[in-house]
């Protein structure tokens, strides 16, 4: 894959100048790092190492990490093993449904390079081609200590503002989408509207849109959120009538 070299505007670069705001940002980042809700997407054997990490032996909760059930509530997406192409679609959807800031941790070698499934026709080899992975925890499988170590590493990175993979996904969406399309075909789309989100939150970069997003928009079914129509008695004869 060709590396695209775009100057990336990190959040540190546009840090606000107001000292109070800086304190506030600092506080929020601190809290983010101390409160991580994780969604463990148990794709493979790595999942077996998570229960020990959560329960009495290692107790992730003392770091403020607790499991959550739906992507909406979660901050961290744990990919615990190989991702088949079919699974990857779900993983991407789940990732896109998470609220930013969000972080992806790839656990096990399979997520790094395909691992023992390197030769499989049906697995995605490198997770970071499709999603912005903030942290890999390599091993086959990594022990709970390694998982916890990885978590601590991520906490530090969040604290310092280095863990900004989620911004990268918005800024270079076209590139990620291109890779996804390469794998899933040209009609690939998720119900989530990443471009709209990027522009809404002012996260769009030069790489957000490109040839792949244009392709997406060609075959995409419209996904505008439903506007509320307050207009009373609007279009009675033309539209309302035809739908009774």
């Amino acid at each position, binding site marked *: 894959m060709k590396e695209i070299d775009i100057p990336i505007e990190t959040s540190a670069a546009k840090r606000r100048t107001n000292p109070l705001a800086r304190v506030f940002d600092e506080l*929020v980042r601190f809290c983010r790092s101390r409160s991580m809700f994780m969604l463990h997407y148990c794709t493979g054997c790595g999942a077996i190492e998570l229960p020990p990490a959560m329960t009495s032996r290692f107790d992730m*909760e003392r770091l*403020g990490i607790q499991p959550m059930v739906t992507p*909406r509530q979660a901050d961290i997406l744990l990919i615990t093993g190989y991702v088949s192409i079919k699974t990857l679609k779900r993983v991407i959807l789940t990732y896109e449904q998470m609220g930013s800031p969000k972080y992806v941790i790839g656990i096990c070698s399979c997520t790094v390079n395909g691992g023992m499934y390197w030769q499989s026709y049906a697995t995605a080899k490198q997770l970071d081609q499709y999603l912005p992975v903030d942290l890999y925890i390599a091993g086959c499988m990594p022990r709970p200590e390694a998982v916890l170590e990885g978590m601590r590493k991520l906490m530090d990175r969040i604290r310092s503002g280095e863990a900004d993979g989620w911004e990268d996904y918005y800024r270079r969406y076209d590139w990620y989408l291109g890779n996804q399309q390469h794998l899933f075909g040209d009609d690939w789309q998720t119900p989530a509207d990443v471009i709209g989100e990027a522009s809404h939150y002012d996260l769009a970069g030069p790489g957000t849109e490109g040839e792949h997003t244009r392709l997406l928009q060609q075959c995409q079914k419209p996904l505008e959120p439903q506007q509320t129509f307050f207009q009373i008695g609007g279009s009675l004869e033309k539209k309302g009538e035809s739908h009774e």
Partner: protein
Amino acid sequence: MSIQILLMELVLMPLVAFVVGLFMVLMLRRIGAKLQRRVGPPMMQPLYDIVKLYGKKTQISHGWMHDIGIIMAVGGYVAAETLLPVPGMDGIADKGGLVTLVYVMMIPSLGLALGVGQCANPNGSIGIARALTAMLAYDVPFVIVVFGVAWYFGTTNLVDIIAIQQAGGVSGWGAIAMPLLAIAGLFALQGMLGKQPFEIYIAPAEIATGPMVEMSGKYLGGLFVMQCFQLYTAGVLYVSLFLGGGENWLFFLIKVFAVVAIPMTVAFLFPRYKTEQMIRLMWKWPVMIGLLGLAFVMH
């Protein structure tokens, strides 16, 4: 009472409730951790969670009712706190009374239900359906308790109820005079807090936390705030009805935390009932105990 003091109370009461509630959430998680031989979260963990959630960059909304629902959920409890007298502060408790408080406490649930409804997620709707069913289950013993207490003290004014109890010392407490009702009240409390074994409407592995399924960011944060209020309100209400309210803040807090600790402890020792099992349980034992207690009280 001058209007300034009243206004100050109206501001302070929810604030205190929130702070105490944060510690109750902490206690909840710590009790769970202890029972599972874990260390548990750090002291400020509930606050971290809430600040993080409010500070999320993207906040996914499903429409204006989703927003208003959260506002109602938090706001309703903020209002309910002012109807609940604490040591030194009565707020507007004498303007509403017990029945009003019980009904105002339904407003947050209603708001949440509406907000979840607009999320268009069947898991959420199922959760709400189950939560309302649970309400039907635990409210039956609960209103028996409310009736018994109101009958015994001859008033629904919480300020008076507390004053009467305190005038009689420890032996004047509702729990001493109405032990059966106090037990039934504990059952209802367990259901009201939605903790195991009565948390079928959350059921994370089955319906993906039900009402919370589509809640992200500050929406979830709002629910966390609501949980603080909910624990506090339930605890204080029970203390006011049965344990003589608060003579001073120290005793008051001890009592409230002690009361809330009971359902917390029970929660982590039990698995989960199905909805119909819950209704059957709630309509059988606590109701029987409550009615028996009521018979004692009224004769």
